[in-house]
């Protein structure tokens, strides 16, 4: 007994099994259906883009941390998640070097320079997409979305907004994603919803942000007079599902309380609709989430949890 060294630590002495790594692994699993469908719809080049982004994100993180003499934390898989999200937000014709530069930008500039995981002020994958769209617009829009065997001419939102001519796919097509053009991971609403349900079941996310975001877009669409089909079209089109389920729910850049999250989600939905319906840009998800990312510390400052036993009169 006397020679045994007992561990002493502060309570609690038990911890849940969920870790940062297990959460990131769950996000990767949840993105698997959309990733697999991107390869089915767009071919092997999708796989190549995914591989380039994931590998360069991990490599960039490791290199940056080594350079800054910090512990290397690529094992938490957060860089892999960022990489996969960047890839799924690329058009199929994006060149390999665009994928690489976007990944390095997301990890080194947006994530590591601000302090690494937990300290980025906007979603790194989204910031990378904005950076790429602004830097190489020709590689990130228009014909960049069209595979070699394309039968249509543009993304559904571009057609709907009148930016491009062409025939809109059916709502069922939009839901499943077959024959729809867009970023490689955003075309199948069904695959993304499946991933979202998995994340909710695994308690990685709560439904507040996705439902608040999608609900706002749905209500706005009906109010704007788009009708029921028009509303479904808006929900399934473009990056909304990918954004509402996987990007807006990024912990670091969304508020902490359920009420704060609802405000944030409604903000995302309103901005998306305003940009889509009245703006000059056919897709609004990316900018809406980035804007609300920046607003989220402000939301957290004012919307705090209402504590137990808050001053109550004659309870």
């Amino acid at each position, binding site marked *: 007994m006397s020679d045994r060294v*007992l561990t002493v630590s*502060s*309570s609690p002495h*038990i911890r*849940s099994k969920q870790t940062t790594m297990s*959460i990131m692994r769950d996000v990767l699993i949840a993105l698997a259906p959309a990733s697999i469908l991107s390869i089915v719809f767009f071919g092997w080049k999708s796989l190549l883009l995914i591989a380039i982004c994931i590998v360069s994100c991990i490599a960039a993180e490791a290199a940056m941390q080594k350079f800054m003499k910090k512990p290397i934390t690529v094992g938490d898989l957060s860089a892999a998640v960022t990489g996969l999200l960047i890839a799924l937000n690329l058009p199929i014709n994006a060149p390999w070097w665009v994928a690489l530069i976007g990944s390095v930008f997301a990890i080194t500039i947006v994530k590591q320079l601000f302090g690494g995981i937990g300290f980025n002020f906007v979603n790194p994958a989204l910031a990378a997409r904005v950076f790429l769209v602004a830097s190489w617009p020709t590689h990130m829009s228009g014909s960049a979305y069209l595979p070699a065997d394309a039968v249509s001419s543009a993304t559904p939102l571009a057609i709907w907004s009148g930016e491009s001519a062409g025939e809109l796919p059916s709502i069922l097509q939009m839901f499943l994603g077959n024959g729809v053009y867009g970023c490689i991971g955003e075309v199948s609403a069904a695959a993304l919803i499946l991933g979202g349900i998995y994340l909710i079941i695994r308690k990685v996310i709560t439904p507040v942000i996705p439902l608040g975001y999608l609900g706002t877009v749905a209500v706005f669409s009906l109010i704007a007079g788009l009708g029921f089909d028009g509303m479904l079209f808006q929900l399934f089109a473009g990056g909304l599902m990918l954004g509402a389920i996987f990007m807006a729910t990024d912990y670091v850049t969304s508020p902490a309380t359920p009420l704060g999250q609802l405000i944030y989600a409604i903000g995302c939905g309103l901005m998306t609709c305003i940009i889509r319906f009245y703006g000059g840009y056919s897709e609004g998800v990316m900018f809406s989430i980035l804007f609300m990312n920046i607003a989220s510390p402000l939301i957290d400052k004012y919307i705090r949890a209402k504590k*137990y036993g808050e001053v109550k009169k004659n*309870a």
Partner: protein
Amino acid sequence: MVTKRATFKGGIHPAYNKHYTESLNIEDMAPVKQVVIPMAMHIGAPCSPVVNKGDKVKMGQLIGKAGGFVSANIHSSVSGVVAAVEKRLTSDGQMTMCVVIDNDFEDTPCDEIKSHDIERLTKEDIKEIIASAGLVGLGGATFPTHVKLAPPEGTKIDHVILNGAECEPYLTSDDALMKEYPEKVIGGLKIIMKLLDQQKGYIGIESNKPAAIAAIEKLADETIEVYTLDTKYPQGSEKHLITAITGREVPSGALPSAVGCVVSNTATAASVYDAVMNGKPVYERIVTVTGSGIKTPKVLKVRIGTMISEIIEFCGGLTDDAKKVILGGPMMGFAQYTTDVPATKGTSGILCLNAKDAAIQEPSNCIKCAKCVGACPMHLMPMYIAAYSQKLDYDKAAEYNALDCIECGSCAYVCPAKRPLVSAIRVAKREITAKRKKEQEAKK
């Protein structure tokens, strides 16, 4: 008697691990040669020893006199001879004044241990008995019972509640007590009801103790309401038990009596019964000895002052890979660096964990997942309080209501980054309290 379901908002669902001991009967711990009884094992002023080295003492005899109103008498747990009155190491890590008694193995009871006729006792008599018997909250908080049962003047009490939640994982002491001695639990509740002029009494038990619920229900008459509580940690927190049963929230910084409630642990109620009916002071308690690090888990009736090491030996000893010994439960208990400390009135459990269960994971960056916000039963924002505490910005931590934290550990339990949230918040609470005290003194 009506059974109702109730719960509160927030909280967590840890692995309960009650299987080690939940089917066991209470067993008497073998008598030991010597007991070391600390003079401070309750909240409040320490006791002053009233015996000297060489004195003969009887079982149940007063050996430490309460050091004030908020304090509780201490009695000998064996009969024998006082071997020493000196400072010894206790489970709080301090050197505490202790009365060391050599056991003569006779268990000669003192004169006070005799049955009373409850009908002939006045309320004042009952209060006096409870105070002199050294009763404290046996759930682990060890707040003197006579203080709790004397709500401040002018407060109207309408709910007397017994806490049978036992929400700490692993522990089954209260469960065993309710199954084996339901008459003492209910008898104790009725005495408390009489004391506080209540027509009704309430008992809350978590749904994972069906046998205890059945045993209590069987004896509960129409004056007792049994509530089946959702199995969720920290359901046994006084505030959350009140909320579950009455729907009321205890205001920040106030006592349960502010919302008309008095809450006692079931084990405390049983000790009220023992004291009032049989004149028996608190000199023994039920202890769950459990976990992956003990050879034979047991639920034991242990004399106060028995060394933890002897209790562990009685349970077959620690396993070869045992790495941690915790007094209390895994959520709020205290890890010990040595087992050479005595069991006290607050020792509800001895949890022994093997190396795997005791492994400490390295903390990583907060990813602001806000799981702690959802888990906090006080509805605070633990991640911000802890972050400000670690940046030494205690004013900001106070602004985020650090002082309302009940240190239940739910936040640290759910944290995927394994951050030491509770420890950081504890530091903030201490600093804030110290600063306020200083400011108050400066005003004088």
